[in-house]
């Protein structure tokens, strides 16, 4: 076999492999999106049609306007009875998720940067202990501390507030952010700051004016981690939220899926809608993300 055929054969197989992987990765998500516009009866046929025969937006319409899909109406009965009323709360829950995740992301950036820079550049007493303490705090399974967390939040009078979730998610995400950004800052040469410091800048000024612009990709990656972790968290969300004022997407979707009046089409609508914000974030950030990580894990 001549080298050229061998190379193109190689390329063909690699492309094939990539195609299989792409199908594996997005297949489930595309399936949910399709299911969300399919009729329940069609969804349960054997074998299923992958492409719906009669696509319908009735379920979306129900979620946003409250108009009950005709397929659920029962003649001679009050119509709202056979459909998950909780499904109508999806937009509100996703809004809650988004607000909490965004706040956690922002606070992580500010305090995470401040702390990580100190760990990366300065010497002070108790540094290693504090650093390891931050990281070690994540070692214990969260289940063991769920009740004490509830007690703390309740004592602070924060039950069923955004602030309770934000605080708890900060505790979960900050150790990772600090660890990650410390490694990242370690990878940035100190020469520029030294010059600035000698010119009379304070540490804080050096951080803001010199280091931050250079660290942008790392910050983006850290932000994405914090956002995703908060957006997806379930255990504490279910304990600390009590009403739709604060219930997040995962809490609501899990609640809908546990009820006898749920249908797979409706659950699919919930999942599909919930996917939109993180997908936008992932698509926008993916460039910086790769770049940001590259610098961080050089382990200087």
């Amino acid at each position, binding site marked *: 076999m001549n080298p050229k055929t061998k190379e193109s054969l190689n390329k063909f197989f690699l492309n094939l492999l990539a195609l299989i992987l792409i199908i594996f990765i997005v297949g489930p998500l595309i399936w949910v999106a399709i299911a969300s516009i399919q009729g329940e009866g069609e969804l349960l046929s054997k074998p299923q049609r992958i492409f719906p025969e009669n696509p319908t937006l009735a379920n979306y319409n129900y979620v946003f306007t409250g108009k009950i899909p005709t397929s659920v109406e029962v*003649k001679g009965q009050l119509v709202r009875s056979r459909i998950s009323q909780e499904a109508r709360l999806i937009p509100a829950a996703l809004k809650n998720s988004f607000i909490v995740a965004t706040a956690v992301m922002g606070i992580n950036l500010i305090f995470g940067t401040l702390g990580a820079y100190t760990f990366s550049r300065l010497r002070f007493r108790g540094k290693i*202990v504090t650093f390891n303490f931050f990281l070690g705090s994540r070692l214990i399974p969260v289940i063991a501390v769920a009740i004490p967390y509830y007690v703390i939040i309740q004592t602070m009078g924060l039950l069923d507030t955004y602030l309770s979730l934000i605080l708890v998610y900060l505790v979960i995400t900050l150790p990772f952010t600090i660890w990650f950004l410390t490694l990242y800052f370690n990878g940035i040469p100190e020469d520029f700051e030294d010059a600035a410091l000698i010119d009379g800048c304070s540490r804080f000024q050096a951080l803001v004016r010199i280091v931050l612009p250079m660290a942008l990709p790392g910050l983006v990656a850290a932000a994405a981690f914090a956002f995703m972790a908060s957006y997806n968290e379930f255990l504490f969300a279910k304990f600390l939220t009590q009403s739709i004022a604060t219930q997040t997407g995962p809490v609501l979707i899990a609640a809908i899926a546990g009820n*006898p009046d749920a249908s797979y089409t409706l659950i699919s609508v919930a999942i599909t809608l919930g996917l939109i914000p993180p997908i936008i974030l992932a698509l926008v950030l993916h460039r910086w993300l790769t770049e940001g990580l590259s610098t961080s894990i050089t382990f200087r």
Partner: protein
Amino acid sequence: MSKVNQRSIFLVFALLLIASLIVACGAPAAEAPPAEEVEEPPPAEEEAAEPVSLDFVVWAYGLDVIQDNINNFQTANPNCEINLQNYGWLDYHDTMVGRFAAGDPPPLLYGSDHWLQEWGSAGWLDSISDNFPQVLDYDDELAPYALQGMTYEDEIYGLSYYADTIDFVYNEEQLAEAGFDSPPESWQDVWDMSVALKEQGITDYPLILAFSQEEGASIEAMISMIYGRHQGSGALFDENNNPTFNSEGTAAYEAIEWLREAYEAELFDPASLTTAELDQVASMQAGAHTFTILPQYNMAALNLPDSGDYAGSFMIGLMPGDSHATVGYVRFYAMTPEAENMGPAAMDCAWKFLEYFGGKTDNEYTVVKRWAVENGLGFAQLPLFEDPDVQEAFGQWGDVDVIAAQAELARAKEGLTPWFGTWDVFTRAEIHKAILGQQSTMDTLNNMADYWNELATQ
């Protein structure tokens, strides 16, 4: 090294500082008994104009209807304000336990028969009959299983939200196709019909059960299969809650053996071991199975038009077995000592609330009837079976006579004790092992009995 010393001294100091700060801030430890929160009752006369605000916690089902009922209640009782909170059904028990343990009980909430002993023994719930003896007036109209499910140590702890039976359900159309015109009377019938259904290629696995380890109702389905085979009480435990099921030939032994053999003969869907309620209903709608056992309220969803080719052909048959008995269970409105702590005005509202939701208003079970008519939920208030609205609504998805007959034969779960929940979680895997043939049915039963006794002595 002195450096190390300094570091550790700093650490200890920091820890002490923070710990003392926290202690000073007074974060109550979880062990702080809720009794601490006793406040002086507010002077009733001055406060009369101010509405009392009571938290009411539910699992998230039919939230719009609940809120609407609350609004109606508040219109009728302007002095009472009800603040609705909710958790998902699958997490409700665990979340409430966390909340009780953290010392934050809501005054009003949903309760269930299988948690009553646990919550009652912990002092998390308050007796209703103790505070409001008038609740006893409802006893006569209640199905015995429901009354029993709301009774702990001879006190009434609830007014029924809904009550239901665990029913044997069959697909009439498929059964007729296989040449049978009436439902199975015994488990031998179920076996024979299943063989016929399978041989004729109508359903590959004629029976499916929701036996996933996460499924809270699996124990109820299991017990209903045992009750149907057993006459009278003592199917699982005697009056002193000692196990009676762990010998060959008991109804429990027969029930598990039957499942094991049906699993081997491929009549019982292996996927049952991972199936929960939602998938069970969907699988039946898909026509993949002919027989199943489920809580009755699912019937309305099963027979929902447009839900599949078989809508309308799902019927309830009396539980197979000599006695046709089954499990009846009840979910109810309950109150906690928190209501009493909030003072007499709150207590007054609490009773009005409980009676409005679980009792009669203007001589009618308004709210209970609404759940039955609109959502197809069952009820424990037997006179409602005579109600024409209820009969019409239930007639949409079932045969009212069979429903009433099965309700009459329903019994509460035996062995309702504070440790029932722990035992239930243990038994799920043990029953799986017998069905999968990993251990003998007797081993499973003995393990279940041993673990029960171990829990009982703790």
